[in-house]
Structure formats: C-alpha cells, structure tokens
C-alpha cells in the first residue's frame, strides 16, 4: 500500500494558537468524520473489517452511525440496483450539510462487472461523489487511505463558505 503520511503542521491543522477559525474548524471536522453504514453488497464486508479489530477505523475518528442525521460521510459500499436507487438519494438528502460521499468498489464507481438491466452504472448518476475508490473488493487499507485523502481535501476547504453545489454525472 502507498505510504501516506499526515503532516499536521503543513496540511493545515495543529497550530492552535496562531490559526484561523477556518482551519481549526476544518481540522476538527476532518478528524471526526462519522460515516453512515451503507453496506450494499460484498464491499460492505470489507467496510466492516476496516471498522473491526485489525484495521481499527476509530483511529481516524470515523465511527459508523446508523442514522443519516448523525452522519457526515456516506460510504457507498457495494452494488446499487435500480430498485434501491431511490432510497440512496433519499438518505443522502436526509444527511446534514456538510456531507461527503466515498464510492467504494468498482460497482459503486461504474457498475463494475454487472453491466445488466438491474444495476445502476455508477452511484454518481444518483448522488454526487467526492472520492472514487477502485477495487473489487477494495482492501480495508485502501478504504482508510480514501478517508485520509478526503480528510486532506476537507482541510483545504473553507469552513464558512456555503458548499458549492456538487455535480451529478
């Protein structure tokens, strides 16, 4: 796996004394990303594994919540079918701003190997996606890497600006 280091001093963060409210707010946000359990298929098992003992997601401040109202991050893990597509949009709309989406696995990215009448060819047709994570099933380490990339992205953003409307594909 790629070596990835979080440099709190450079990537916007730790210096509390001389910093902008922006940075400290985003630092706090990025380190307490609560994820909505959105396990749809096989990838959900790897998502659970990354929350369990060996990979331990709590180190990143990521705790899985069952309610969209308490979640900042939606990890779409698995195949989205046309029958389910309505619900994912409804749950996404129920999440409070600011919110982010990680699309985990080939199925969520593009439909993957299931190019059939029943599957949605990528969740980005229904909800806007921030990070695409390739792999069938991606390993837990890669999911954690994706969350770290997202954290980096959040630290770069401004806290008080209204989020730009995200684009659907």
């Amino acid at each position, binding site marked *: 796996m790629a070596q990835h280091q979080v440099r709190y001093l450079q990537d916007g963060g730790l210096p509390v004394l001389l910093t902008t409210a922006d940075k400290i707010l985003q630092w706090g946000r990025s380190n307490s990303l609560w994820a909505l359990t959105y396990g749809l298929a*096989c990838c959900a*098992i*790897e998502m659970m594994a990354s929350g369990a*003992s060996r990979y331990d997601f709590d180190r990143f401040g990521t705790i*899985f919540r069952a309610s969209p109202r308490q979640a900042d991050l939606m990890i779409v893990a698995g195949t989205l079918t046309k029958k389910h597509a*309505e619900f994912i949009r409804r749950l996404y709309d129920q999440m409070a701003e600011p919110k982010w989406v990680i699309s985990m696995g080939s199925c969520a990215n593009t439909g993957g190997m299931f190019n*059939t009448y029943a599957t949605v060819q990528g969740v980005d047709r229904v909800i806007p996606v921030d990070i695409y994570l390739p792999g069938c099933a991606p390993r837990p380490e890669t999911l954690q890497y994706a969350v770290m990339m997202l954290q980096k992205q959040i630290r770069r953003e401004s806290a008080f600006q209204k989020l730009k409307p995200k684009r659907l594909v």
Partner: protein
Amino acid sequence: MKTPRREYPNRLEPFFENLVFDRDDNTMVINFGPQHPSAHGQLRLILELDGEQIVKAVPDIGYLHRGMEKMAENMIYNEFLPTTDRMDYIAATSNNYGFALAVEKLLGIEAPRRAQIIRTMLLELNRIISHLFWLATHALDVGAMSIFLYCFREREFAMDLMEDYCGARLTHSAVRIGGVPLDLPDGWIEKLAHYINKLPKDIEDYEGLLDQNRIWKMRLEDVGVIPPEMAETWGCSGPTLRGSGIPWDIRKEEPYELYDELDFDVPVTDSCDSYGRYKLYMQEMRESIKILKQLIPMYKESDPQIMAHAPQYISAPKEDIMTQNYSLMQHFVLVTQGMRPPVGEVYVATESPKGELGFYINSQGGPYPYRLKVRAPSFWHTSILQELLVGHYIADVVTIIGNLNIVFGEIDR
C-alpha cells in the same frame, strides 16, 4: 403540500407501495430496511404491529438483484466463475466450488486427488470464516460489541491464509473447473496447522463470554423457534435445518469430494431455537477443524498433479503451453471460444456454510450455458420469516434475522 419540482430538480417523490395509511384496526405498519444496519444487506420487511407484537410480516427482496443468472447465459463457463464469488461473498470459495463441480459433472471429468484435498481445505476454511462472521454480526446485532471485535480478529488470520493462497481476501476465485490453479505455497500447511491449533481455544473464549451471559440467553432462548415440520415445509437446509433436530448434511448424505473418506460428525440439536443454533454453529467450527487436521497428512502423501487432464475442455499446464505447439493451440481455442460441454443438464448440490447450495446447468452443446439456475439456501431462509416473525416482539426481529444467517448477494443474485 407538494413542493414545485422545478425548484428541486434532484428531489425524488416519495412513494409507498400499496400501503394504506387510513386504517380502522389498531395495528401499525412499519418499514424495516432496506438500509438497516441489522438487515444483513438489503432486506426490507413490512411489519404490522399490534403494540409491540408482530401480527404480519412481509419480506421484500430484490434490492440487490444484479441479474447474475442472465449474465451466465452470455458468458463462457470459465468467465462466469469469478461472478459466483459475488453471490455468497462471505464464503466465496464454496460458490466457486459448487459451480465448478456442476460443470465437471457435465463434462464428466474429475479433479486429481491433490486438487480435491486443496479444495476441501479451502471449503472448510471458508466455513470457519463464514461462521466466525456469522457470530460476529449476530452478536453485534444483539448488542455484544466485544464478540464482534474478537471474532474479526480470528477471522483476519483465516483471511490471511486465503490471501496467501490465492491473493484475494474476499473474492477468491480459488477453484477452477477441473482442479485448482495453484499448489499450496511453501509454509502454508504449517501456518494452517498453527491456526487450527489455536482456534479451539478462541471458540472456547467466545463460549465463555456468551454461554452463560444473561442478556445473550434472554435474547436468544425460545426466540425464533422453528419446529421440525416447519423447517421441512419451508425448504430449510444447513444449520437451520439441523437446529430443528433433523440430521441432514449433504456432505454425509451424498458425499462429494473427499468427504466420504473423512471422519467427522454432523452436530444436531433438538432445541429448535436461536440459542440451540448458536451452539450448533460453534460445534460445526470444531468439526471443520477436525476435518482440516485430517487433511494435512493426506496432502503430504498426494501426487503433485492439480488440474485434470482433459485437453478437449481444460488447458494444459503452463509448462506444456510454453513448450508444445498443440497445447498452445488448445489453450487459445479454450480461451477465445470456451469449452463446449456435451448436451445435457445437471443439478449438483453442495453443503455451503449456509445450507444446500445447488447449481442447475442446462447445456445445449454451445460454449454458453442455455440456462443456469442457482438454488441459494438463504433465499429459502428468508421466506420463512413471514411465518417465523409472527407473534414475536419487534426487538426479536434483529435476533431472528441475524440468526438465520442470510446473505443478500445470494438471495437476489
């Protein structure tokens, strides 16, 4: 009041399927799932409650229907094998194996002995992985978080073994039609021996935490009672059937692979409830360990051939392809056009960790199956919910769903 659609073009209109909300009786209709953390995938239940008691339950499936059986009709046989991984994704090898065995029956070939030993090892290892996962998620639903963490710890070690062998953690594709692709890597057997020596102690630990645990007993005992007649009429199989006191295991009844040479018991319990099934799963893991222990010496005695010899259907070993022109041509034809099994149909059932997993293949002599049907055990265990849930309390729903060990990739396919 309706919001004008122009303002929110992305918002969808909610719709409710045939649900009547003006009612005169005292029951309440609630919706459970499809995105519920305890629904084990995408199960949706429409429950009618009288107070806290369920009077009617309708399972609604199809939220993970990916059209796999249709896909099979447009794929050559070897191409479809990785797709079977995604059915019961918790124990992927058992699906690969069920499919490979069905095709082998159709072709009339048999895997060499070493391949059979390796396959049986992988199957039993997958059974352990699946049962550990079952205990982990079931305990999590019932409220025992620590069991979840412990089970995943041991499960990761088994996954490491699988990864050492085939390179994948979840979607293995570790079985091929006619054998296995690779021999076991160096040192694998020792790692396996180490793992299965350690595992019984861990199982004891789980039992120490759960067996006499008051909450665990209160939530499992006499919950989800499946009488033997009910289990039979609804077509249950696997641990769900054996938990109702019916000793039926396809490994014993119609032995495939090496199971007639191996010495193992089929645990059965008469208690019919969730607690009895929990004990049964623990016992089954011990039996799997017993089988694995017997396989290690058998592996050491076997010949190194791992793929069946049938040039018409199966590519030659790599060395032959690299050195012999005829093998290379065969290989080319098999890869580009696929094997053409004889005309006929087969149904082969195997005992997957969840029950009877059957593959039906109808071949018209072409490179694609004319029809492929999967008999997935979880599908039958989901249909039992409409009878089983009635009369239980709403809090028992998650216990029962968790206890039946259903996996949605397999139900909806």
